[in-house]
């Protein structure tokens, strides 16, 4: 069973078809980079997979749950991390992870393990999030995703707002998560960085998804024009 299965998926924002027949399959353990210009539909694709945007036409399933009928259930199984981290700044790292874990009934052991995996369990655990660096906040947000058992990570411009060392830190974190079997869809303009993380790259252009040939330079969106527009498997 694929983690994400979209067939001719259409999603509309207002009157505008932000996704105009997207077809995509993502298998367990893959890190798929979505690349494309602003307004191409990358964020909408992520939000569709998160169950936040309704599927207007076509078919789609995330983790085996139908996007047309089980959006609420899908939301509980995926983690969407955008420009903001979704953290409480006046809580400590441990308090944030505990809160997010408690919303799904995670055990103390699971929460501790999530913090250890993201290297925020030691000295940082008792530090208020407002005092953390941007990279440490990102790691804490990812620990919260793990604590609430997100099985599919949807990352929208995960490097935005981070300095060079924080970006390196985040890349290392994502590599480790992928090695542990996490499945990720990453929308990014940081093609060199995100491309080196990804196991596969797809172009999103005009609300449609295009496969990219593996040996094509991920920094050049124009170089991956696919033979069959709208299909990426």
């Amino acid at each position, binding site marked *: 069973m694929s983690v994400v299965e979209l067939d001719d998926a259409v999603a509309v924002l207002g009157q505008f078809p932000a996704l105009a027949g997207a077809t995509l399959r993502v298998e367990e353990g893959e890190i798929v980079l979505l690349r494309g210009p602003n307004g191409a539909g990358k964020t909408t694709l992520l939000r569709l997979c998160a169950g936040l945007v309704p599927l207007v036409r076509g078919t789609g399933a995330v983790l085996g749950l139908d996007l047309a009928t089980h959006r609420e259930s899908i939301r509980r199984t995926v983690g969407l991390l955008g420009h903001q981290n979704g953290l*409480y700044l006046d809580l400590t790292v441990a308090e944030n992870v505990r809160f997010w874990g408690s919303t*799904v009934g995670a055990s103390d052991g699971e929460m501790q393990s999530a913090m250890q995996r993201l290297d925020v369990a030691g000295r940082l655990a008792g530090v208020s999030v407002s005092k953390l660096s941007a990279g440490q906040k990102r790691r804490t947000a990812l620990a919260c995703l793990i604590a609430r058992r997100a099985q599919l990570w949807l990352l929208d411009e995960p490097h935005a707002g981070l300095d060079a060392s924080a970006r390196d830190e985040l890349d290392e974190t994502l590599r480790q998560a992928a090695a542990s079997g996490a499945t990720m869809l990453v929308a990014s303009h940081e093609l060199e960085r995100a491309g080196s993380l990804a196991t596969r790259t797809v172009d999103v252009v005009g609300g449609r998804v295009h496969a990219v040939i593996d040996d094509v330079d991920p920094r050049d969106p124009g170089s991956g024009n696919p033979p069959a527009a709208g299909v990426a498997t």
Partner: protein
Amino acid sequence: MSALRIARFVAAKDLRIEWNSRVFVNQVLPFAGVTMVIFAFALDADSVLQRVAPGLVWLATMFSMLVLVQRAFAVETADGALDALRVAGVDPRAIYLGKAAALGVQLVVLEVVLLFAAVVLYGQTIPAGGWVLLVTTLISATCGLAAVGTLYGGLAAGFTGRETLLPLLTFPAVAPVLIGATRAVEAALGTAGAVVSDGWPWVGLLAVFAVAFGVGGALAFGPLIDE
């Protein structure tokens, strides 16, 4: 997991945030105290102050409540936590009930402090026969205020200019609580010639208001924060 269990986690989280930040103790309580002192300066005469003390206590409560509600949703929007709750599929009824419960706890503390301030600053006395009515009024009015404050706080959270929008939305909606709670506390304290039995119908109004807004708020909160 049940909505009530998640509501408990949300309430505990909000109270923990207040405990860590000390905004309630260092800013909201002093603001409420200063409001009571300013009322005393404005009305001056002891006899007038004692007669209007119940109304002043509830006015100060409502002004302070606005600060609490703004704060309760500022912590949710500062780093996109409210969006994250929505994305995580957390039951919006649980978010609403949890935030309302945390607000209610803070309001009860605030009301007790303000009543104490009325006793100290205005020379107000609380007769022995009025305690049951007074406590019942505090509880029912607090439930109503927390229900309305959380509902409109959630509504205003998504708008620019929410700082000015929130009072505009909230004050008309809590007018029945202001009237009912003031009359009931007047009866409990025996001001303006009222007796204890005069207060119970007002408590009934407060209870109906709290239930109506509590149920309505829990049902409406999801669509409100989804927009």
